[in-house]
């Protein structure tokens, strides 16, 4: 993989890895166990540009390419998947839709503080009755004079507990089906804006995933992103880019599991030799390393296509599907190599195992990605 990278990409990897190992590594276990959000580290990340990776310099970002972006996400996730999730969701489905569909005024208002990490973004799509069925959204935003009257019950909102700028998917026209959905920006603190309890999740526990509800919130008409009825298009465009980030997150988790598996296999002795000398273990190591690299290359390819302005929907779906499935398998093998210790919190692999599992579920389940890929292949 390294052969395909530019000097700049490599500099990004060096710098982000050093930061994460020193600043995030020592607390990764604790923030997982206590499900706490590490504000101190997040503030430092904001100053280093991690919250505006692809935001243009004129709006306070780093103005980087998608390849640098996946490197940042992989490196953060290698140390702490919950924070990797925070950063990728913020950048890809929180900030990117504002850049792609926002007016100049909207960009100037919301993007700079988001790019500096002073405010955190969230993508509020999922509802109790709308997940894979994107058109099932029931939230409403009814135009009423100079504002929208918004009622919404959004669940499993990544960054929900700390988000300041939330993209709310709601029906502006209850009778228009898929074409009646729009995106309205809601800021924390708006009357009627309520953050629900944090989810007690299996993995990615340092991320404050929560529900967000709006009760009769009056949001100004200028908070509409794009045009009325564009909601699904905005959402799907954001998710096309977003899943490259989730793929990178899955690669990061798998990479960490591979490294721990190798380390343990070299030091654990059974039958008078390190278990890395036993063929059954070497088979697993080979599978892990191959899957990590294949996942990384698929992710890299979708990032390159995006940088080149070429279509990447099918390719990013392939990357997300493969990387998340591989991450589950690789972390599972890392636990297996560790034996009983792998199932104990004394070693980090059980955390990787829990963290990897959700990458097959969010930002499009593996099943939905099969459909996206099949559609792409059959239409060719």
């Amino acid at each position, binding site marked *: 993989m390294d052969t395909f990278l530019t*000097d700049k990409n*490599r*500099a990004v990897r*060096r710098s982000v890895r050093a930061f994460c190992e020193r600043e995030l590594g020592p607390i990764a276990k604790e923030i997982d166990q206590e499900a706490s959000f590490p504000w101190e580290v997040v503030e430092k990340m904001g100053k280093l540009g991690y919250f505006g990776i692809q935001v243009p*310099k004129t709006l306070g*970002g780093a103005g*980087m390419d998608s390849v640098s972006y996946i490197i940042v996400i992989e490196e953060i996730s290698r140390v702490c998947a919950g924070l990797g999730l925070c950063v990728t969701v913020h950048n890809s489905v929180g900030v990117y839709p504002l850049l792609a569909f926002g007016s100049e005024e909207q960009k100037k208002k919301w993007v700079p503080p988001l790019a500096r990490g002073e405010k955190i973004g969230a993508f509020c799509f999922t509802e109790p009755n709308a997940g894979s069925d994107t058109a099932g959204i029931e939230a409403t935003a009814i135009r009423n004079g100079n504002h929208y009257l918004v009622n919404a019950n959004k669940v499993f909102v990544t960054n929900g507990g700390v988000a300041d700028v939330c993209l709310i998917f709601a029906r502006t026209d209850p009778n228009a089906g898929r074409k009646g959905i729009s995106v309205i920006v809601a800021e924390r603190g708006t009357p009627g804006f309520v953050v629900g309890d944090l989810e007690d999740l299996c993995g990615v526990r340092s991320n404050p995933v929560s529900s967000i509800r709006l009760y009769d919130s009056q949001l100004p008409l200028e908070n509409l992103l794009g045009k009325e009825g564009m909601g699904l298009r905005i959402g799907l465009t954001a998710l096309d880019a977003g899943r490259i980030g989730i793929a990178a997150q899955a690669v990061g988790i798998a990479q960490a599991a591979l490294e721990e598996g190798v380390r343990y296999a070299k030091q654990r002795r059974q039958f008078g030799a390190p278990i890395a000398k036993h063929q059954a273990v070497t088979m697993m190591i080979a599978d892990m390393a191959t899957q990590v690299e294949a996942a990384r290359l698929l992710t890299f390819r979708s990032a390159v296509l995006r940088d080149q302005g070429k279509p990447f929907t099918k390719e990013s779906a392939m990357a997300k599907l493969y990387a998340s499935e591989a991450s589950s398998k690789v972390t599972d093998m890392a636990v297996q190599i560790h034996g009983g210790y792998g199932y104990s919190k004394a070693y980090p692999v059980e955390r990787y195992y829990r963290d990897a599992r959700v990458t097959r579920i969010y930002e499009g389940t593996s099943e939905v990605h099969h459909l996206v890929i099949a559609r792409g292949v059959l239409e060719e």
Partner: protein
Amino acid sequence: MNIIVCLKQVPDTDSQIKVAPDGNSIVTDDVKWVMNPYDEFGVEEALQIKEKMGGEVTVIGLGPKRVTESIRTALAMGADKGILINDPALENSDALATGRALAAAIKGLDYDLIFTGQRGVDDDMGLVGATLAEFLDIPQLSIIVKAEISEDGKSVKVNRAVEGQTLVIESSLPAVITTQKGLNEPRYASLPGIMKAKKKPLEEKTLADLGLDPSQVGEGARKLKIMELTPPPQRETGKIIEGETPEEKAAELVRLLHEEAKLI
């Protein structure tokens, strides 16, 4: 205030070091190279002084092309310019020749202060700061944990830790300061910093550019010869003391320390 930071690239301390077949060098094929951590303190201190007093920070590295990577890192942290002294004749130079080449590169520059690490974490010689100061005929302040520039920018007050006490030294500028752990916490290169670093000037200089003769540097000019490198002895496996009760184990431990290890 114009500041120069000398930078060395060293094997990452995580790298496995193997002695080469010649017996007096290391195998460099699999080594991951990083900026000498003591030099990182120098870069950080220079940047902090620049942020307070203005001026420019120039980073000078000496070695093969790969050293540009570390120079770029310093530029991404915020330094303004880089210089790489790269000449095949410099290979296997000792500290005297390194100091000579650095001094030749620095002589023509406008500078008030020079930072170097107090030593490289590879061969731990700790000589380049001294040789450099000598060749430039300016004061050397070594192993420094705190540096304060006077308001007029004409002098510097530094602290060195000595035996639990602090030695405070004042010196006129320009001077060479060699850095010690504790001086500061080096910053990480930010993403916008990495983008900016690409456009910053990085000059490459050969011995001829510096007006030096190849016979003054490299293997032939070494005053200091490495006779042999040996890896540290393999740690022997530990011994677990068996016993029913803590008392029994303690007695056995004392017996072993006395009879086998002959420590007590």
